[in-house]
């Protein structure tokens, strides 16, 4: 017994070091798997509070650009509205009281944005109290940003599309061929689309947008345009580089999307 205690006292530094080191490695491995990094997260009142405090100060420098974006978005929405009026509105009648809208939008502000690492996260200033939950889609008026990964009372952490673990269902606008949006970690303006079959007609400048099948994003949220593509003769799938519409280095305000039918569709799927 005496010897064991002596041993522990003698090697207490090494034991403490090994314990803390393995603990850190455990946390690290957790972050490398999707939806598992629950222990260490910036979505808490302390780090979130500091980030939003600083963000309140430096928001003013970007106000001009955010205003321009808003005007652009209003213009686009007005054009859509004008086009709607051309169609006879009363030909299809929806009772909005008894039928819930399929998607709900919540506005939020990005208070911490990172894009220089391989696995990037964003922090936004809406959380459980604003009924934000995991797996909500995150977009701006220009295109997609990511998916909500974890929430605290007042903040939510978002897995950016600039994260090597993220995989989002997208399709070509011109045809219905779909693929998966991933990121190779190199350029924050360029993302990759995999698994588009060689039959698909891909051209430079084609628009890519989201596919409605993912339960997270509605159909037709813009992603980007084809910048470059490659088709090896031995491969069945294209390798496509896509230039994002969004400037991921300066995001500002975002919309969080809630899909009201998500539960129902998930239940149906699991019944198979």
């Amino acid at each position, binding site marked *: 017994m005496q010897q064991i205690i002596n041993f522990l006292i003698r090697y207490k530094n090494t034991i403490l070091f090994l314990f*803390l080191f393995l*603990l850190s*490695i455990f946390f690290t*491995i957790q972050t*490398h798997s999707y939806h598992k*990094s629950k222990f260490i*997260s*910036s979505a808490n009142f302390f780090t979130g509070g500091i980030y939003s405090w600083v963000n309140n100060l430096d928001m003013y420098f970007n106000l001009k650009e955010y205003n321009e974006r808003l005007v652009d978005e209003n213009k686009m929405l007005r054009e859509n509205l004008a086009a709607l009026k051309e169609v006879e509105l009363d030909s299809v009648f929806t009772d909005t009281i008894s039928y819930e809208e399929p998607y709900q939008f919540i506005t939020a502000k990005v208070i911490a944005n990172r894009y*220089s690492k391989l696995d990037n996260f964003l922090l936004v200033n809406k959380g459980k109290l604003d009924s934000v939950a995991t797996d909500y889609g995150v977009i701006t008026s220009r295109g997609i940003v990511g998916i909500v990964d974890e929430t605290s009372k007042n903040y939510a952490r978002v897995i950016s599309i600039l994260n090597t673990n993220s995989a989002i269902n997208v399709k070509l606008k011109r045809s219905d061929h779909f693929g998966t949006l991933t990121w190779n970690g190199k350029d924050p303006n360029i993302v990759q689309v995999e698994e588009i079959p060689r039959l698909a007609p891909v051209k430079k400048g084609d628009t890519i947008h989201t596919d409605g099948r993912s339960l997270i994003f509605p159909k037709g949220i813009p992603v980007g345009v084809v910048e470059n593509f490659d088709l090896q003769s031995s491969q069945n799938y294209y390798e496509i580089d896509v230039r994002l519409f969004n400037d991921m280095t300066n995001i500002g305000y975002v919309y969080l999307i809630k899909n009201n039918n998500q539960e129902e569709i998930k239940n149906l799927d699991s019944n198979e």
Partner: protein
Amino acid sequence: MNKFLISNIARFVILVLLQVLILSNINFLGYINPYLYVFFILLLPLNLSQYKVIFFSFLIGLTIDTFEDSGGIHAAASVLIAYLRPSFLRFSFGISYEHQTVKFHQTPFAQRFSYISLLVFIHHLVLFSLEIFDVNFIVLLLKKTLFSSLFTILLILIVTGLFQQNKK
């Protein structure tokens, strides 16, 4: 002892805030960031017992991790250099470290430089290996380690230079 405590706590808070609010957002040439918070570990009092050094290093690493959503990479790298610190102190400052007579700001430049650069380099190597965690990105790992280390070392030397002038 009280003065030690206050100055170390102040250094902790200032370096963490500086790191997460400014230095981590520099992204020079897309990916080069200095990690100045390592300076806290280098400057912990030399006569502080080893297990305290390891514990405080873990604490500052984990704080940075919480802010940056990076799991435990900063904590792991910090704990490792805290554990290796005595060996490098002995290597760099030699016999005067054994007698505990070293005052960090009064050491010769060459000794201080070797101490700073060795620990910073090891810290960054472990940090980026854990962050990237993928053999396909080995070139990116080496580039990040090299350039970020140079940036951090330069920054630490500038900061020590500034504080030295104040003391005179």
